[in-house]
Every structure is written in structure tokens, then in C-alpha cells.
């Protein structure tokens, strides 16, 4: 059985996307996209709808043609190859199981197209279905399966041909929430076991964070940042990435340099900036002060802030019970119009007697603030 127990005969391959531009008519869908995906890596294209992530995936599969740039798989330029000669496996968002074939026929299709001997096809189909736990369902039609089972058939159909690269187009979006976590872990495990290079398209940051080694965040056809999940969360490159991955607080203001130490001056107060807060040393255009809700604590207005924290005075607008933490919405001068600064504190650790309308101090951890541009 080639699929699971034996070592793969071919090593994992890398995927390189080199300066790709793509237009749909006048619509510039991909703008100078340049990515290097490592062999055996689980990589995600993450972004809101319309950011070009699916277009980029379909470009690798050969369903779209780039106007500029090239795509290399294992060092080989595949830009001019049609989809059926690329040997990349794609799992479609809709699964695209053929309703006129049984599960086994669906899975056998790619092997038949490769003109393999009947006996080997039978053996590999059985192995692939066993791998996804659907052996007993070989004779069923897709319509007779649940959504999760259909998803596994789609996966089995793709991996049975042992593609060089596995492409997954929002494969979890049609599953219910409970199943999603389960399938997510299975996908990851399978990818590791087969040593496949996998690319995963999603708009869900949690999916990308939990399953992928590295993530490319896309917006308007441009790659915003590439990195491991924690890297993107802790060191976002710009306001979009900061806002897209988790909740974040933004404050408007200006950078002042009195002597050596720069400081961010907002309407609510001045926040001294450590060097790490300004990675390039220079304030980017449209700069905002950025910090995560759990990187601040609430304090009574009178007391002085703890060392290493800066005080932003405000008024409590609401509090929300979220389970492990409690979230406080504080109106602070300098925040975007209509938005409150959010502060997450562990359940039960907030000062006593805070009710909406109360004056309160937001104490920001200085080593956690960033100044980011758009």
C-alpha cells in the first residue's frame, strides 16, 4: 500500500509563486504576489472574501492564467501547463463529487485517467477509502452521504493519485462547527503522515491558526504579511493584519520625539514607545497605536499606574461576560469614532463596583504596544 505505510517514493516539493499579476477585465485581482511555500509545509491563504485567495489557489491548480509572473512546483515552471497535467490535488469547496458515480468510482477516476492497471486501482481505492474511514461506503452514491462523509470522499479522491501538492479550498466551510474541529485535526494528521505540501484557503483565522505552519494574509490581491500564526498575531505588519487576526484596539495620535525616547501622543494621554514598537524606527503613514485587549488592565482613576504601564483615562460603557475572561468597553478619547477600547481581564479580577458610566483607567502594557500604518 503506497498511501500510508510505505515511505513516499517522491520527496515533498516546494511551491514558488513569483511576481504574479492577474486581472479579470479591469479588475486587478492579484498584485505582484510573491510567495515561497516550503516542502511539506501546511500553508494558508487567509483573507476576507474578494481578497484573491481562491484565485491564487486556482492559479496554482491551473484554472486561472496569470498575466505576469510564474508558478513553480518543485522547481518546475508549470505556468503553461493545463490543469490536467499539473499533478496537484485540489479539494473543492463544494466537494464536486460526481453524482452519477459511486463513492468508489469517484475515487477511482483519477487513477483511471492515469491508465493504471485495474488491480492496482482497486487496491488503491480501497486503501484510500480505509484511510478516510469510508471503506464500507464504497458502493454508495454521494447524495447518500452526510456532509462530513462527502468531504472525506473528496479528500480520498484527491490524495489517492498521490499529488505533489494538496490544495484545499475552504474545505471546512460546509461542515457544522463540531465536525469542523475534528476534520481539521484529521487533515493535519493526514498531511503530516503523507508528507504533502498543502495549501489551504480560508477566511477563518481560527482555522488557519490551528492547522497551518505558516499563513499568508491577503487583502485586495496583495500579500500583507507571511509568517507563523503567533508571529502574525504578536507582530502584525500593519493595521489590516492586526485587525484581521483577533480583536485589537486602535488609537489615533502623533509621534513626538523629545530627546531620545519617542512617545505616542493621543487625545487621552501620552504613551512612551519602546524601540520594538517602531520596527522601522520611523512612524509609518496613517500611524495608529495598537494593542490587544488582554494587554491592558483596568485601574481605579486615583491610583498611579504600575511600572511599565501607561494610563489612558476613560469612561466604562459596557461589560460582557465571555466565560474565562470579562470584556470591558471603555470610551477613551482618541479611539475611532463609535468604538470603545476593549480590555479583557481574567474572570473575577476586575476592580469591584465597576458599572457603566464609571470613570476608569486603562493601563496599557508598554512592551506590548505597536505603532502600525495602513
Amino acid at each position, binding site marked *: 500500500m503506497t498511501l500510508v505505510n510505505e515511505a513516499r517514493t517522491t520527496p515533498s516539493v516546494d511551491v514558488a509563486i513569483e511576481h504574479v499579476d492577474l486581472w479579470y477585465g479591469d479588475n486587478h485581482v492579484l498584485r505582484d504576489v510573491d510567495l515561497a511555500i516550503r516542502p511539506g509545509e501546511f500553508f494558508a491563504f487567509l483573507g476576507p472574501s474578494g481578497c484573491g485567495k481562491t484565485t491564487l489557489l486556482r492559479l496554482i491548480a491551473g484554472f486561472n492564467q496569470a498575466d505576469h509572473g510564474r508558478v513553480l512546483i518543485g522547481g518546475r515552471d508549470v505556468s503553461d501547463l493545463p490543469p490536467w497535467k499539473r499533478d496537484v490535488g485540489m479539494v473543492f469547496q*463544494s466537494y464536486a463529487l460526481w453524482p452519477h458515480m459511486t463513492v468508489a468510482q469517484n475515487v477511482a477516476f483519477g487513477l483511471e485517467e492515469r491508465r493504471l492497471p485495474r488491480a492496482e486501482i482497486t487496491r488503491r481505492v480501497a486503501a484510500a477509502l480505509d484511510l478516510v474511514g469510508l471503506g464500507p461506503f464504497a458502493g454508495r452514491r454521494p447524495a447518500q452521504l452526510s456532509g462530513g462523509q462527502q468531504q472525506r470522499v473528496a479528500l480520498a479522491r484527491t490524495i489517492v493519485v498521490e499529488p505533489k501538492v494538496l490544495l484545499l479550498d475552504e474545505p471546512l466551510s460546509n461542515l457544522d462547527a463540531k465536525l469542523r474541529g475534528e476534520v481539521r485535526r484529521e487533515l493535519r494528521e493526514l498531511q503530516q503522515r503523507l508528507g504533502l505540501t498543502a495549501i489551504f484557503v480560508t477566511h477563518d483565522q481560527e482555522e488557519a491558526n490551528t492547522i497551518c505552519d505558516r499563513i499568508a494574509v491577503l487583502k485586495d490581491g496583495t500579500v500583507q504579511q507571511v509568517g507563523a500564526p503567533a508571529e502574525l498575531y504578536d507582530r502584525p505588519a500593519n493595521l489590516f493584519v492586526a485587525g484581521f487576526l483577533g480583536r485589537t484596539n486602535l488609537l489615533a495620535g502623533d509621534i513626538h520625539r523629545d530627546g531620545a525616547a519617542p512617545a505616542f501622543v493621543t487625545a487621552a494621554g501620552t504613551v512612551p514607545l519602546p524601540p520594538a514598537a517602531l520596527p522601522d524606527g520611523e512612524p509609518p503613514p496613517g500611524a495608529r497605536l495598537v494593542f490587544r485587549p488582554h494587554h491592558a488592565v483596568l485601574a481605579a482613576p486615583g491610583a498611579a499606574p504600575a511600572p511599565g504601564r501607561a494610563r489612558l483615562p476613560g469612561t466604562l460603557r459596557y461589560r460582557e461576560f465571555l466565560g474565562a475572561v470579562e470584556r470591558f468597553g471603555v470610551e477613551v478619547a482618541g479611539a475611532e469614532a463609535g468604538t470603545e477600547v476593549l480590555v479583557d481581564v481574567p474572570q473575577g479580577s476586575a476592580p469591584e463596583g465597576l458599572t457603566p458610566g464609571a470613570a476608569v483607567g486603562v493601563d496599557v502594557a508598554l512592551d506590548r504596544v505597536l505603532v502600525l500604518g495602513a
Partner: protein
Amino acid sequence: MTLALPTTAPREKRAGAAAATPGQWAVALAIMAFLLVALVIPVSTVVYVAFTEKGTGAFTLVNFVDFARTDLFVRATWNSVWAAAMTVVLATVLALPLAVVTTRYRFRGAALVQTLGFLPLIMPPFVGAVAMQLFFGRNGTINLLLGDWFDISIPFMEGLNGVVFVEGVHYFPFILLNLSTALRTIDRSMEEAAQNLGSSGLRLFRRIVFPLAMPGYVAGASLVFVKVFDDLATPLLLNVKDMLAPQAYLRITSIGIADPMGYVIAVVLVLLSVGAVVLSMLAMRGRDYATVQRGGGGLDTRPLRRGERLIAWAVVLAILALVLAPHAALLLLSLATVWSYSPLPDGFTLAHYARVFGDSSLYITNTLLYASLAGLIDVVLGTAIAYLVLRTKLPGRQWLDWTAMAAVAVPGVVIGIGYLRAFYGIDVGGVPLATLWIVIVLALAVRRLPYALRACYAALQQISVSLEEAAENLGATKARTLRRVVVPLISGGMLAGFISSFATASVELAATLMLVQSNSDAPLAYGLYVFMQSPAGRGPGAALGVIAVVLVAVCTFLSHLVVERQHRRQSRDVAAPTIPGATG
């Protein structure tokens, strides 16, 4: 102008719907009464006569034994089956390239194909038969030229060849329409998944695309099969008498309505038609693929390379030239002074039109009257049946749908014979009921009802029940909800149903040929048939034919405009008359 046969019973509707009201019962009984009179009783009469002994009225199978022992009838049966099957093959050959090129490629001629491809349907096929003789007959243009140049002759129009040729060219739009719709609604990812796994080109088409479009193809093909069985005038005009429909007609008209053999042939016709329909439904059972999925969109249309574009245009133009040949020949014939034994007419004149407008305007007004009445009856019945089936809990409501749809599989000549037999004895003010023109309307209405019913059904099915519930919640009664919410929303579908009934009823002859008792009651198709029988009448006949085609085309186009405008006004997903599987 096509219909998909009802393959699955609709699912049970809302659980909380009230029990049937007396009003619903009254409507259902009225519809049942119509179906009994117009369809069930005449057809039952035919069956009854076929199984009874002449004179005594005792049950017997001897008529069928006679049928099986008569060489002519056995040959006629095989000829009919063979001609129908070959017509399906020819129609497929014509329709498949057009459907594929227009749905799967970015092809500028797509609109042309969609418009011109349907023209054959609005001309009676037997008129096409006469016209085709002029181009393809033994002494037609093509064979005269072939004879001059190569000294050969191709028997396009000899015997069954002619029937297959004429019917294939005439009825291929049924396959084109259904297949195109099916191809267009296949989810793009279905095809891409196959490409991703290494499939391409013809193999991809054969293994994935065509099987997915199969339900549409089978729906179209079974319609063509049944239609060829049904057609009476084409074989008669081509002088092919050893087929079932002509035999039934000749038997009744030459020997009389008392002769049982005509009824036996009619029963065989019905059995084979029903058999073909049932067979196609069985073949497609469980294959009603819900095609377009979540946000998928139809098949990708890809650009053609220069060479491919050339081939595509050549194929499309060749097919269009062939299928429009009858129209061209008809137009030439209507303007010709003399046209025989020459590739083109000797001279041109407008005299035929003058004569037709002078003498035969009665045919035109009769046709407008009959076809509009039939269309109106069909839309009213179609809407009522669709509403009862989809929106009420009336017990047995499915039977209304099934009975009405059964008319698809009843050949026109059987309806004609049944009406003569069932209604001849009924005296209305001194004349038999069967001789009144209203019977022609009844026959047209029941024959076209399935088309209108499917259009209305599809339109109503697309409207969310919550729209009606909202009206009822705000205090509107069922009747007022129907009038103020339902009917305005499905008016597009109703109009589409009316057009298809009107247009096809205008050119219908199979059932009416036997029912027309006097020239003053005759519709256009009958007049055409009479004209076309004599060489001298062919000029005026062609002029009448051209008028018929123009008339139906203009009416269809106008109604199309109305539907389109209404579509633009309404929200996009309401009352669309064309949905996969049940194109209006």
C-alpha cells in the same frame, strides 16, 4: 417550448396547512371533469372498442391477434419505432454540437443559434416535408445539382428516410433546449475536479460532462421519440403509409369509425408512446442531479482558438443551413411562379399571397381563435392544477397532475379517433357534438396542457410559501392572496405557458385532421394540408405557411418581450419561466 416530464412527486408541503376547503374541492372537481371529458373518456373509448367484439360488445383479444397477423401492421409498427429511433439519432447529431458550442465556449454565434435553432418548432413538420422535397427530393435542388455534376443521386427523401430527415430537422430543438439547459447548469467544479485529476478533452466530456447532462438529454430525446410517433401529416404528405399513425388515420377515414382495427392501432400507438416515456423515466430514476451547487456557477465557457473558431462556425452554419432549409424553401416556393425539375424557381410572383389573403383569411382567424382559446384554457387549468398540487392538502391532487401530463404520451390521432367515437353520438341542437369547432379547441387544449402546466408549475414552485403566508398573516383570504400575490408573481410563467400552448397549437394537425368537418371551421394547419396535397396548391400553401410561421414568430416574440420586461421589474429569482429541467 419544451417540457420535462414530471419525474418525482413533489415533497410534502408545509405541515400546518389547513385541510382542503370546499372551494378547492370545487376547482379540483371541475378540472377532473374537464380531463375526463377531454382525455380520459375518449381514450378509454378507444381502448374499449379495441378490446370488444364488433356488434356484440363482448370482450375479445381477437382484434389484437388480427393486428399481429397482418404483415402491414407489423411492418408499420417496426417502421414507426425505427423512424422514431433514427429521428432521435439524427436530432442528437444536429443538437449536440450546437448545444456544446453554445454552452461551453465563448462563441459569438450563441445568440444566433438560440434564436434560429427554435424556428423549426413553429412550422408544422409536414409543411417542412413539402419544402424539403424541393431541396432534397429526387428532383430537388441538391439531387439535380449532384446529378449534373457527379451523376449521382442521394435518396434523402425516399420512404422512411424522408420521414426521419424531416422529423429530425423539425424536432431537434427539443434536444437542443433540454441539453443546453442541462449543460449550462452543471456546476463548474464538477468539471474542474476531473481536470484536476488528469482528465481533459473528449474523455472529460464523455465521462463527466455528458453523464451529468444525461437527464436533460433523455428528457429531450424521449419527447422527440414520442413526437415522431405522434406525427400524422408528415408521413402522409411524403406518401409513407406503412407507419402506425397513418394506418390508424387511413383505417378510420376509409373504412369508418366502426372498424375496430383503427382502434387497435391507436391502442398500440398509446402503448408504445407510454412505454417510451416510462422507459426514459425509469432510466433516469434517481439521477435528477441537483446540479448547480453553492455559488458554483455553470460550466466554464472558454475562448476558442482561431482554428477551433473556424471549425465551430463551419459546423454551426452548416447545421443551421440544414435546419433552416425548410423555411428557405417555403419562402421561395411561396414566391415562385413554377418550381419543378429545376434547382431554383423559374420566376417570382406575389400572386400566391394575394390569393391566400383573399380566400383563406378564414383559416388565419380560425387559428387565432382556436389557439388563443386553447392557450387560455391551458393556462387557467395549468395554474389551478399547479396551485392545488403545490399549495393544498387536497387528497388525490397528484392525480390531476398525472392525468394532465398523460396527454403527452397520447398521440394526436388517438385523441382524434377517440373524440369522433365518443362525441359523435352526442346530439347538440340537431348536429353531433363531434362536428362542432369547439371540439377542435378542446383537442388542442388537452394536447397542449402538459406544456402550459409545467411552465405554471415551475413558476409557482419558485415562489416561497412565506410570501403567501405573509399576505394571509396580514388578513388576506386565500382567494385574495391568490389574486394579489400569487398570480402577479407567476404571471411570467403563465405567459410562457400560454405562448408555448398557443404557438404549438397554431401548427398542430395530428388531432385536428380528423375533427375538421367543414372548411369554414378549418384552422390554418388544415388549410395548409389541403393546399399541399395538390401540386397547384403548393404556391398558395407555401404562402399560407410563411404567414403561419411569421404569425407564430411575432406572437412568440412579443410575449417574450413582455416576459423579459416583467423579469427586469421583478426580483431576479421570482417567477422565472425557465428553470433547469422544466424550461417553459
